[in-house]
């Protein structure tokens, strides 16, 4: 594929947002993480194809960009479900029953940590302290933080995410 075609994998909106970030930084490569997060916001994850296009756009090698991508846990190099569920497994939540909550979530969704439901609705991941330890145990669904979670509340919580 030509360079132009490679970059064209990205939408105009994605390119515009990436360029906006790059314009505020001393060099284009510094926008690498922002760029991947932007593309992920549109597509749910960062495919090899997207990665190649971003690398071209920022003038860096795919290998270099991938080594950055794989360092960060919030950049997904595999497809995820429509909603990402993260259950906090750090110490305050542990003290307040995070293990039990995780098991209840796994049971409710019928998947284990790292898996996606068959209907592609939910992906379940562990997460470190969400900075809401006074509301432990906590979890996050997409952008929404939920504290003081009880197994009984799960049904109602998940129903809100179609």
């Amino acid at each position, binding site marked *: 594929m030509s360079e132009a075609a490679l970059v064209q994998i990205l939408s105009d909106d994605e390119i515009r947002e990436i360029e906006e970030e790059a314009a505020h930084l001393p060099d284009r490569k510094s926008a690498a993480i922002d760029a991947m997060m932007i593309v992920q916001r549109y597509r749910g994850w960062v495919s090899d194809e997207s990665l190649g296009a971003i690398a071209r756009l920022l003038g860096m090698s795919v290998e270099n960009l991938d080594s950055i991508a794989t360092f960060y846990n919030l950049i997904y190099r595999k497809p995820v479900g429509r909603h990402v569920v993260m259950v906090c497994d750090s*110490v305050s939540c542990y*003290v307040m029953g995070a293990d039990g909550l995780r098991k209840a979530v796994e049971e409710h969704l019928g998947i284990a940590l790292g898996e996606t439901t068959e209907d592609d609705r939910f992906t379940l991941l562990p997460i470190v*302290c969400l*900075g809401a330890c006074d509301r432990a145990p906590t979890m996050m669904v997409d952008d929404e933080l939920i504290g003081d979670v009880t197994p009984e509340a799960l049904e109602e919580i998940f129903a809100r995410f179609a």
Partner: protein
Amino acid sequence: MDDTRPLIGIIDTVGGAVDRLAYESHGGYEAARKALGMQPDDIIDLVTEANLRGRGGAGFGTGMKWGFTRGPARTPGGKYLVCNADEMEPGTFKDRYLLEYNPHILIEGMIVAAHAIHAETAYVFLRGEYHEPFRELTKAIDDAYAQGYLGRGIFGTDINLELRIHRSAGRYICGEETALLNALEGKRAQPRQKPPFPPASGAWGRPTIVNNVETLCNVPGIVRNGADWYHSLGTGDDAGTKIYGVSGRVNKPGLWELPIGTTIREIIEEHAGGMREGYKLRGLLPGGASTDFLVEEHLDLAMDYGTIQKAGSRMGTGTMILMDDSICPVDMCRNLEHFFAQESCGFCTPCREGLPWVEELLIEIEEGRGKEGDLELLDRNAMFIGGVTNTFCLHAPGAIEPLASALRYFRDDFEEHIRQGKCPYR
């Protein structure tokens, strides 16, 4: 402004998140106006005199840190101010509260700090999962730009300040300030060789000051009311207030802005409402997951940098995690070391290989497969991994603090696991 609780008192006064109008009607942005009329060096002297110490965990003198950038006058884009809003230390939830409920105090603190160090560009390095703080801070920054408090010629002066948010993509190590700078530059967040320290060579090789959210939020009050007032807020050796937090099985988990040096007992019993019925306190991590356990005998100690250090721990972030008598200390250490092993950046061997090994051994002991001699092996490896000169950054020594102290204070529990061949708490 609430003169005894300058950081978060206003949130209670206003009854929720503080927007710009509310902030300004309580004296907000007066300090910025005042500071912009001061000589940068005088601001640094004032902050030094106030004895403001970093609230990100290490307690380094803020004025002294800023002073390292003294020298050549303003060169456009020449220096950077970075606010460390990565808050990922397990058990810590204070910066989230400030960002979400009082974002303008951070912006004002950053305006003052940037002027003091001659920076025209500032970044807030915000952890990726902080969506609510991102929304609130973005709103506040947009508003400040619209008012001419940020941008070119701020407050009608000839001073410029661009303020941008960098949203992180995860990993605890990003909070370490040199790893943070690599992340800000769009690279893998591996810590850098020190020296040079960031005030000499930081973001993109330029002099850079990295400060914690809470540290910067202390600055407006100091500028407005002076160093003497700031000293009068604290008890003991340290100055100002501190946001203390408690999580675990207490009646009212939460956070409170109190005179720095308030005792642990007062924080737990008066503010957090004491232990829940049926639970006894056995130990606590005073300032996040990477601080040594303290126990009953320490409850009357003042939560300040020197006192907690003398007791063999660190005040850290000041948000304590309580371990009650239903929790197995071995299993709690397993939880902590799982976190630290997972979050190692992988650069140096004692951390990358040592922490997973420690986690494995803790699992063996917890699950009843511990052997005679395992504890001595743990002791020895803890000493090796925790040696501050044995690893490239302070991640590994921090990781070992709770474990090494647990091996001292809760040794019977560890031994009991090995003797009984099972966890006595299950």
